[in-house]
Structure formats: structure tokens, C-alpha cells
């Protein structure tokens, strides 16, 4: 147990215009866990920045808006620079219940996984999203299964935990927008052990989804091509990895 205690864990929370939820969420995370947190303020146009400052919440301010992928990648970069062993990413809109953090990192602490995905479709409990989204997510499950033989029930989940190896892979390459399904495939392709953990998600408490109706066609196309490209990409040499 002593060995487990020494693992340093960082919780990465990307934040873009989340003024209504961000401070509550950080308080909740801090009260429910004793891990460090870092909020990545992705050049928010509302007063998220001053809320973070006033709340004395550790945060990074990106001088240019990079999108969710660039923001999360900043968190991974920061985690590696500061010698964290595990990084957990949590959406800034409060969809992900901090109660489940310890469950999501458990396989990594036990050393049986390099990347864990919090899936709402294993126990089918909690918020399940709309029918049309579920169809889309199911499509990615099938696509990833066909290409890798690995079953990922919730490839779009942004509730994930990574060990150092995975963090290094993600700092090397991470898609700029809608990165999760592609990065899961990228990790599988690079022989990382990916596993899913059942979690309950909540309905978003504020903000709106980054995926509107018009964008959904672009989304499906972009993510599908991204997944296919990750299969034919050359494997990243782990010796090349550094920050």
C-alpha cells in the first residue's frame, strides 16, 4: 500500500467558457479527492479566468484558443513536466462525477492498464445521452472493433486516466478537435493497454455541447477518418518520446 500512496495524480480539467460550473466543479473535486488539479483555461471569452483567479484554483491560461484537444494536451505536457504518474481528464461542464475518479484510476494504479476510459455504457446507468449520439458512439465502437479487435463501448468519453507512457504518447500527437475516439485508437495501435471502467455520468450542468447539429456530419467524418489514419500511421517509438 505504501507504494500506491506515492503515485502522484493530476486531474486535468479543460475549460472554455464554463463560468457557471467551473468553480463548483473544482470545489467538488477537491472535497471528494485529495489529488492535485489543474484547470486549462483555453482562452475563454467569458470571465472564467477571473473566477479561477479569485477561487485560487491552479490554472494555466492559454494565450490562444487551441480547442479541447490542445487544452487537454497542455495538461498532459504539464503533468509530465511536473513528474505526475497519473493524469485524469475531466470535462469542465460537470458531466463527469468526481466520485468515480478513484475507480477510473484503479486499473492504472494496479498496473494492469496504460489508459482507462470511463464508460457510461457498461452498466448502462446514469445519463445515457440522446439516441442519435448513442448511434454515433455505437458506430465508433464497431469501427474500432473492426480495425483493432478491441471493444470500446464509449470511445467519445472525455473521462479518462493515463499513466506516464500514455501521457508521453499524447504529448507527441493529439488531435486538435474531437480527439478522444482517435486517441483511443492511437493508443491501441501503439500497443498500450486500454481498458474501460463503468462510470455514471450526469447531464451537463452548464454550457453546451461542442457538437451542434450542423457540425455532427463534419464530426462523424473527421473522427472516422482520424481513426482509420491512426491505424495506418507508423508506430511511435517510445524511445523518441520526450517533452
Amino acid at each position, binding site marked *: 500500500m505504501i507504494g500506491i500512496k506515492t503515485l502522484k495524480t493530476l486531474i486535468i480539467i479543460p475549460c472554455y467558457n464554463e463560468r457557471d460550473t467551473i468553480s463548483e466543479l473544482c470545489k467538488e473535486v477537491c472535497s471528494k479527492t485529495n489529488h492535485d488539479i489543474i484547470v*486549462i483555461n483555453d482562452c475563454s471569452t467569458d470571465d472564467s479566468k477571473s473566477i479561477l483567479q479569485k477561487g485560487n484554483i*491552479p*490554472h*494555466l*491560461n*492559454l*494565450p*490562444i484558443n*487551441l480547442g479541447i484537444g*490542445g487544452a487537454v*494536451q*497542455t495538461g498532459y*505536457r*504539464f503533468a509530465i*513536466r511536473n513528474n505526475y504518474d497519473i493524469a485524469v481528464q475531466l470535462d469542465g461542464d460537470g458531466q463527469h462525477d468526481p466520485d468515480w475518479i478513484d475507480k477510473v484510476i484503479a486499473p492504472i494504479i494496479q498496473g494492469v492498464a496504460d489508459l482507462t476510459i470511463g464508460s457510461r455504457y457498461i452498466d448502462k446507468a446514469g445519463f445515457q445521452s440522446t439516441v442519435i449520439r448513442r448511434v454515433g458512439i455505437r458506430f465508433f465502437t464497431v469501427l474500432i472493433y473492426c480495425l483493432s479487435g478491441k471493444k470500446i463501448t464509449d470511445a467519445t468519453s472525455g473521462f479518462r486516466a493515463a499513466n506516464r507512457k500514455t501521457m508521453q504518447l499524447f504529448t507527441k500527437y493529439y488531435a*486538435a478537435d474531437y480527439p478522444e475516439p482517435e486517441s483511443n485508437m492511437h493508443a491501441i495501435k501503439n500497443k498500450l493497454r486500454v481498458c474501460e471502467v463503468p462510470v455514471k455520468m450526469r447531464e451537463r450542468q452548464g454550457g453546451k455541447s461542442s457538437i451542434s447539429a450542423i457540425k455532427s456530419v463534419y464530426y462523424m467524418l473527421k473522427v472516422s477518418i482520424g481513426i482509420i489514419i491512426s491505424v495506418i500511421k507508423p508506430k511511435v517509438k517510445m524511445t523518441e518520446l520526450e517533452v
Partner: protein
Amino acid sequence: MLIGLRILMLTVIAGMFVFFIILLRKQKIELRYCLVWLLSLVGIAVFCIFPHILDRLSALLGIDTPVNTFFLICIAFLACICISLTVVVSRLSDRLRKLTQNIAISEFESKSNSTKSD
């Protein structure tokens, strides 16, 4: 190809060539990004100066009017330029992303260092 069109094209190419040289002299563009332009211009000029190459090529490709072959070649050169620009833009956005991330992290580190020393 008609002699009129040839003269017109050569004039335009010469004009563009001079324009690029001026831009290079003023350091408004980087040589490595305008090389693909200069090479394309030279390529198109060759076809204007030696139109019988164009006639041969047209016959080979089964194109009735050599001027269409000429346009096809011009489009091919433009496509090459566009592709090279896409590569450059992608590389720039990748670098910008890395730079932005490192600035944010450095800012945080310098801030936390200054509060520590206070």
C-alpha cells in the same frame, strides 16, 4: 498554340518572376516557400517557348487542342503549390500549438515560483 497567347503568357510569367524577385529582395517572402512558385513559372515558360513539346504531349494524351494541355499543366502546377502550402500551414499550426502550451506552462511556473519566494 497561337503566337499571341505565347507572348502574353511569357509576359505574364516574366512579370510574376520580377514580382517574386522584388518580394524576395524586400524579404516579404521566404525563399523556400517561393521556390515552388519559381519552379512552376519556369516549367510553364518552357512550354511557351517550345510549343512543339506541347503538340507532342497533346497527341500522346489524345487532347485535340494543345492549349488545353497547357491549361492542364498549369492546373497541375497550381495544385502542387496548394499542397505545399497546406503542408506549411499544418506545420505552422502544430508549432503554434506547442508554443502556446509551453507559454502557458512557463507562465504558471514563473508565477508559482514568485509566490514561493515572497
